[in-house]
């Protein structure tokens, strides 16, 4: 991580965007002019000095709801990504280091989970489980962990073959020592890029679930719920639903810009034969 590529303008835009989002989510009470569910005007009022982005489908301030929603979106996406990494990386490294039947069992189980498209899997499970935030976080984390497992196992499998790991093994170090001291430090940079991608994906996934009405449940609202609440206005020429949608898109673009920047180091080795 010490040798990140030099900052590009695009990467800077991405970093600033992500930082702004985190600040917005962290200091929501300071930024939001109104409480989340306070009715401040009529249905779908035009933007005014009081309601910067207009009002929503039952007259609440859209800007305030957007700010509060940032917090929900961020907390759920970040929590599920963190849990997914905890599970995925440790199991992935474990499988790669232990090899043999442990690897076989874990990998085949993972293949099985990945044989069902993510959203379909989530929908099937959410049909039965209670609809609350904890369940949502755990379902998202489990599904993402399969992808993290695959990537971290591939990274670790490459590293395990290298001489210094072999040396540690011959020296009689335990597998846990090898994972923490030899594999992890050398896998950090690709894992960091993966973390960004997973976070972006978690935001999209959460928004999609909420948009379908199966994610965050009212009265709490994330950005996807805001789109769902206001979508009916679209046909009357009221574009309130597009604002939270644009916010999601902007945030994901920013995260992707940062990821592209981190990945540049590895991809620029290939195909950079021609300048021009």
């Amino acid at each position, binding site marked *: 991580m010490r040798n990140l590529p030099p900052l590009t303008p695009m990467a800077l835009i991405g970093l600033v965007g992500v930082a702004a989002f985190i600040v917005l989510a962290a200091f929501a009470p300071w930024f939001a002019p109104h409480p989340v569910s306070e009715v401040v005007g009529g249905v779908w009022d035009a933007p005014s000095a009081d309601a910067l982005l207009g009002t929503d489908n039952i007259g609440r301030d859209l800007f305030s709801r957007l700010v509060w929603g940032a917090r929900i979106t961020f907390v759920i996406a970040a929590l599920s990504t963190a849990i997914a990494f905890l599970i995925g990386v440790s199991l992935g490294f474990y499988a790669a280091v232990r090899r043999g039947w442990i690897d076989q069992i874990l990998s*085949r189980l*993972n*293949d*099985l989970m*990945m*044989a*069902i*498209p*993510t*959203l*379909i*899997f989530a*929908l*099937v*499970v*959410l*049909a*039965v*489980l*209670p609809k609350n935030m904890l369940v949502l976080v755990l379902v998202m984390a489990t599904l993402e962990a399969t*992808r993290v497992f*695959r*990537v971290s196992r591939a990274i670790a499998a490459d590293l395990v073959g290298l001489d210094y790991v072999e040396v540690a093994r011959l020296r009689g170090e335990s597998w846990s020592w090898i994972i923490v001291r030899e594999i992890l430090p050398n896998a950090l940079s*690709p894992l960091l*890029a993966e973390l960004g*991608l997973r976070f*972006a*994906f978690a935001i*999209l996934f959460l*928004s*999609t679930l909420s*948009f*379908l*009405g*199966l994610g965050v449940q009212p009265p709490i609202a994330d950005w*996807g719920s805001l*789109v769902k609440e206001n*979508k009916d206005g*679209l*046909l009357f*020429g009221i574009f309130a*639903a*597009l604002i939270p949608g*644009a916010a*999601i*898109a902007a945030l*994901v*673009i920013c995260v*992707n*810009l940062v990821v*592209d920047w981190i990945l540049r180091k*590895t*991809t620029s*080795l*290939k*195909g*950079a*034969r021609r*300048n*021009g």
Partner: protein
Amino acid sequence: MGGPPLADGIDTEIQAMSPLPAQKTSGNSLWSLLVKRLLLGLLLLWAVSLVIFAGTQILPGDVATSMLGQQATPEAVASIRKELGLEQPAPIRYVKWLGAAVTGDFGRSYSNRQDIAKSIAPRLKNTLLLAAMAAVIAVPLSILLGILSVLYNGTWVDRTIGLVTLSAISLPEFFAGYLLIAYFSVAHFWLPSSATVSDAMPIGQRLVVMLLPCLTLVLAVLGHMMRMTRAALLNVMASPYIETALLKGLPWWRIVWKHALPNALSPIINVVALNLAYLIVGVVVVEVIFVYPGMGQYLVDHVAKRDVPVVQAAGLVFAAVYILLNIVADMVSVLANPRLRHPR
């Protein structure tokens, strides 16, 4: 089994995905490979059916109470349990369910009492039609863009394509869909905002109605496909024989077209297969946005109603379609790359 590769748009995963698992083939005929792949697919499908069943039946939370809500009377719960056969142990229920499902009998929907198989058939047709229409547009377009961006690697063409596709990846499907509606249906009255099709509709009108959902779906998969095509091509461009061709003085387009592309064909086919997952996920959301009567809308509606039999059936159908498409992609990529017929 290598399992069908499924990623969420990771360029790095290109290296990790193996087109076919290394398996010992006695005769190297395509047929034996095809049969093996089909059998593996069936095995996988069976395992998936187990997962889906377990996911809806064994997870904490009783199906009957979750269907009725918290304030259900004990009698109502008991009658549902009986109707769903819940008083039997789970393994027996699973065997019964699977046995009926193989013969095309998914039982009756809990919420509206309709035969599930009968409701699924026309919806599946609609969904496949929409997905196929999107694929026909998206696949050639994204491969073309991928080749263009490698041809003009590092120039403004490459950067523009890169930026546009990055944005396309980042747009949630519903945002892309509503943007299209806002422009084509609300601002101008060019295309209808809802895609309620029926069999009685003449084919021309049907295609017009499906245009917006199709475009949304294309937007959803285009970026991933293009970026991964580009990565696969660039991977090949790093080979020594490309350098030889370059040093021998061949023109750049000829190197890309004649030397790189044939060798990148198999990874590109894999890229297309990987993105079938986006197509399937995308189709669910797109159908909800445009009120298109397909499998996705059917599934989402019944998840909200907690109609477990329907959810199981729809989930199984989606998984089956996905596994089948992956097998097809595998076979096509073997056809495109004879080296895969002789596993190391």
